[in-house]
């Protein structure tokens, strides 16, 4: 089989439409993961009674089961409990919650890396608890957390290919669909792989730049 530029060119618009959905899923999933992950971490760090146990169980449960199983469960089982959401919404939520369980650990480690003296210094100045978190602890934890969180977002971008299994017409699904219609898989799937590579490579360069500027500012 020889590479055919004509096929590649006609696959391109389909793949771009797929990339758009992939990016929506990744960005939506990131938003969910960043917020839910922070909430999980805060409950564990502040040791909120009862909720703390729930969060530990929840995190272990999410991390102990495959993402694909979670996607299938949300897509096929939840409707029988009356919860019907679009495939994309399910994809965003499941991707987000799955990664939140990992991001919670990143947040937790970053907060624990802030020297205890800093917290005592803030306490000695009688800075109220909420303000202590906002202006002393989190800003100092951020440079440690951001590169790690960024890595999870990049891997979420790649994991989003799994959404093809629950009918989301994202990048991989578009490539596969184009192949099944034209009987040519070489061009669309090669391009799919290249697009994943280029986007994640550029993102990781951006992330490294961010990491460097944050270290300089410290």
């Amino acid at each position, binding site marked *: 089989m020889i590479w055919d530029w004509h096929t590649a060119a006609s696959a391109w618009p389909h793949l771009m439409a797929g990339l758009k959905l992939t990016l929506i899923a990744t960005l939506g999933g990131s938003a969910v993961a960043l917020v839910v992950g922070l909430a999980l971490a805060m409950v564990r760090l502040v040791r909120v009674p009862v909720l703390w146990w729930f969060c530990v169980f929840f995190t272990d449960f999410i991390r102990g089961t495959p993402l694909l199983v979670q996607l299938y469960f949300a897509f096929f089982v939840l409707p029988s409990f009356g919860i019907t959401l679009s495939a994309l919404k399910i994809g965003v939520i499941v991707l987000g919650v799955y990664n939140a369980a990992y991001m919670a650990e990143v947040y937790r480690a970053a907060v624990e890396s802030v020297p205890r003296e800093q917290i005592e210094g*803030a306490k*000695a100045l009688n800075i109220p608890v909420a303000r202590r978190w906002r202006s002393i602890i989190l800003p*100092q934890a951020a440079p440690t957390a951001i590169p790690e969180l960024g890595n999870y977002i990049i891997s979420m971008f790649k994991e989003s290919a799994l959404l093809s299994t629950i009918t989301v017409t994202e990048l991989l699904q578009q490539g596969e669909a184009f192949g099944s219609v034209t009987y040519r898989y070489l061009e669309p799937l090669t391009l799919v792989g290249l697009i994943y590579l280029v986007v994640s490579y550029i993102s990781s360069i951006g992330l490294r730049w961010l990491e460097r500027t944050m270290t300089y500012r410290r």
Partner: protein
Amino acid sequence: MVQEIEDRKKMLNPGQARQQGSMGPPASVVPYAVRLVDVVKNYGSVTVLDNLSLEIPPGEKVALIGPSGSGKTTVLRTLMTLERPDSGHVYIGNDELWQMERRGRMVAANERHLQKRRARVGMVFQHYTLFPHMTVLRNIIEAPIHSLGVEKEVAVEQAYGLLDLVGLRSYADRKPSQLSGGQQQRVAIARALAMKPEVMLFDEVTSALDPEVVGEVLKVIKDLVATTGITMLMVTHEMRFAQHVADRVVMFDAGKVIESGPPEAIFSAPTHERTRSFLQAVLVRD
């Protein structure tokens, strides 16, 4: 010059102002600024404070001396609410620090109670603990704005006044990492003063510093002692400094106060054998 000192006194004497104002009883019925009664603190099986009692009248400058692990720093940390004692009573003025009244019974203080009491005490730490991501100015105004509810413009103006006091006005926009250790410690002193504390705690504030900058920090404290009526507790290994600035020297050993008196008495004629051997060891090193 005289006027300047008077102004500084006014700015830095909130404790007395508060005692004489409507917020608390008049100074005459507050015999002590700080009082510890039978305080016990254990870390596991180690007793750090062993039934310790200590009374400090308002305005007194007290130097706490003694070997490492004798409980000096723990006293300061207990007063700053960073370390909860296992038993005993700690008072700031007339108010119990670690206990509060609930339905007619005394119970362990909660965070809200501590927050109210803690505002009257300021502390300067051995390692400065400036917030590295904030400028010098921001370090000083953060607490007055968010803890005392001072307007930002007022807090900034007051911060510049305090930076003048420690000789660092031109450093307001720098980050702590751009300052020397001595300068950082002076900022830390200004930051603690911005909260207008009645009681100031200094925890070995010069022991992390290079020898050549120790003097500039001690000078700031000496100025404070000379110009303000703030009650001060200073844990220090600088015996000459203690001798010059303290009204009273308190010698700690094994979680207890073993000797206490005016500096000249303690340094020239210590009565306790332990004090004698301690002073001999540190003065030889000096």
